[in-house]
């Protein structure tokens, strides 16, 4: 492996981290409230609302069922509108975020659903408003599960970020594709793959440890 490629790989690791970090962050900023909305508007829950639940659920399902590669291509004009360009690390963050939002939303919904209904009943009996109940009862109770789900989501975003290489996104995926695949440099291909696996394992490990540390039951 030449020094040039080594440098490229090191930059690639950095870019992958940047893409994963920001896409995860932004997708939680949007996906978490969506997940809360999906959870709380379900029939029988504290903000039960059939219409909201149906509409949000529909949008989430549509975005989630699109293959990520297709979403990447479909979102090129949108990306250009937001960041002014459609290639590179920054540009890749946009489709990564959009692709991750529905996954985050469903994951959050499922974590919140694990909270015992009795706790919500207790909050209501104490005179807590629905919003207060969500913020101070449901979310704190679901935190360990949310963190565990978070680790899975971040690892998924990392996997998706490698795909962004196809349309000119940066990171390890682009290197694996350009040097490893198109130029038949097997060594580069395997190195990037190994690095990606390591990164996923690292994220999983951190997530699980965090969840374990916070779980008190």
């Amino acid at each position, binding site marked *: 492996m030449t020094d040039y490629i080594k440098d490229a790989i090191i930059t690639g690791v950095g870019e992958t981290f940047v893409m994963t970090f920001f896409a995860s962050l932004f997708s939680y900023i949007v996906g978490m409230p969506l997940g809360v909305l999906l959870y709380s508007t379900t029939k029988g829950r504290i903000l039960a609302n059939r219409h909201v639940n149906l509409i949000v659920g529909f949008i989430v399902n549509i975005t989630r069922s699109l293959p990520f590669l297709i979403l990447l291509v479909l979102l090129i004009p949108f990306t250009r509108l937001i960041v002014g360009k459609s290639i590179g690390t920054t540009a890749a963050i946009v489709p990564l975020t959009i692709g991750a939002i529905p996954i985050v939303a469903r994951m959050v919904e499922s974590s919140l659903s694990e909270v015992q209904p009795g706790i919500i*009943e*207790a909050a*209501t*009996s*104490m*005179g807590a408003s629905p919003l207060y109940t969500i913020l*101070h*009862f449901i979310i704190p*109770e679901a935190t360990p599960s949310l963190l565990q789900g978070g680790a899975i989501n971040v690892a998924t975003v990392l996997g998706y970020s490698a795909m962004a290489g196809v349309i000119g996104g940066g990171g390890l995926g682009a290197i694996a594709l350009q040097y490893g695949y198109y130029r038949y440099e097997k060594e580069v291909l395997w190195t990037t793959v190994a690095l990606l696996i390591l990164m996923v394992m690292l994220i999983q490990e951190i997530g699980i440890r965090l969840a374990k540390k916070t779980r008190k*039951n």
Partner: protein
Amino acid sequence: MSKVFELKNIYKTYRNDGKEFTALKDVTLDINEGEIFGIIGMSGAGKSTLVRTLNRLEEVNGGSVSFYGKDLAKLGARELSHVRHSISMIFQGFNLLNQRTVIQNVELSMRIIGMGRAQRRRKAMEMLEIVGLADKADSFPARLSGGQKQRVAIARALAVDPKVLLCDEATSALDPKITGEILDLLKKINRERDLTIVIITHEMSVIEKICDRVAIIDDGVLSEIGYVKDVFSNPKSKAAKKLVFPSNPFDPSGEDGKLIRIVFDGTQSSVPFIANLVEKTGLKVNILSANTKSVGGIGYGQMILELPQKEEYRKTITDFFTGSGLTVTEVN
């Protein structure tokens, strides 16, 4: 004595998959200030629904529920929230936050009413002292036993100085010894703080131990209501009889044998009736079963007796018991 709750002709119906299920039918009752009011019934009788109408966790389909004269159904979200601050509730499953420490759990109810941090801490410690768990303040609920968890829930419920405490099968998940301790604690709080307590249970022993009055709910209908001592000594409805008198497992020795049940209503529990009977009439009866229980310190009891064959003897015996002030009923 002012009325805390007034329930007038309440109905509650659930709709599930197009099928209707009536959980409460025309229930009317009052709960007085300072009393411990028990609501007993078999599971599925509607008692949990009934207690949930008291803080509007369940809306009623008909009739009205008033809290100190205020019709709950007419309250807006803010007023309802305010009313709920004076009606605390504890549950069978404790419903503590597992991810929060004991003291944080106790503080929750006070956070909701907007009490400041320092005051909250102080009050929470005070409440934990009362329930005897001050040393567990920084433990997590997972480290506590069931009885301790319920004590934390009681501390959380009382921290906001409510007027009423609703207990929904609060001791049903606990063993008899711990149940006794929790009931003693509730009784103590009732006396010291003049707190009105409403207890939902399926266990007669809970009613016997601490309730002043009891309502018996059977299949969504209020079948009997009254002072515990009256209901115990003279249950009128079928549901009450079933709860007060354990079913009789014995058959008469012969085909034409006759069994009767005599009931002591407390005042005569120290009188030796059977001995008196033998002495006065010379007739003998066979005691098949007997039990006594203490309700508020007074002994209540019942006996199942088999009477002799001769009709005239039977009459003499029943007359003797009725004449001595006992309630005599036939057992089939």
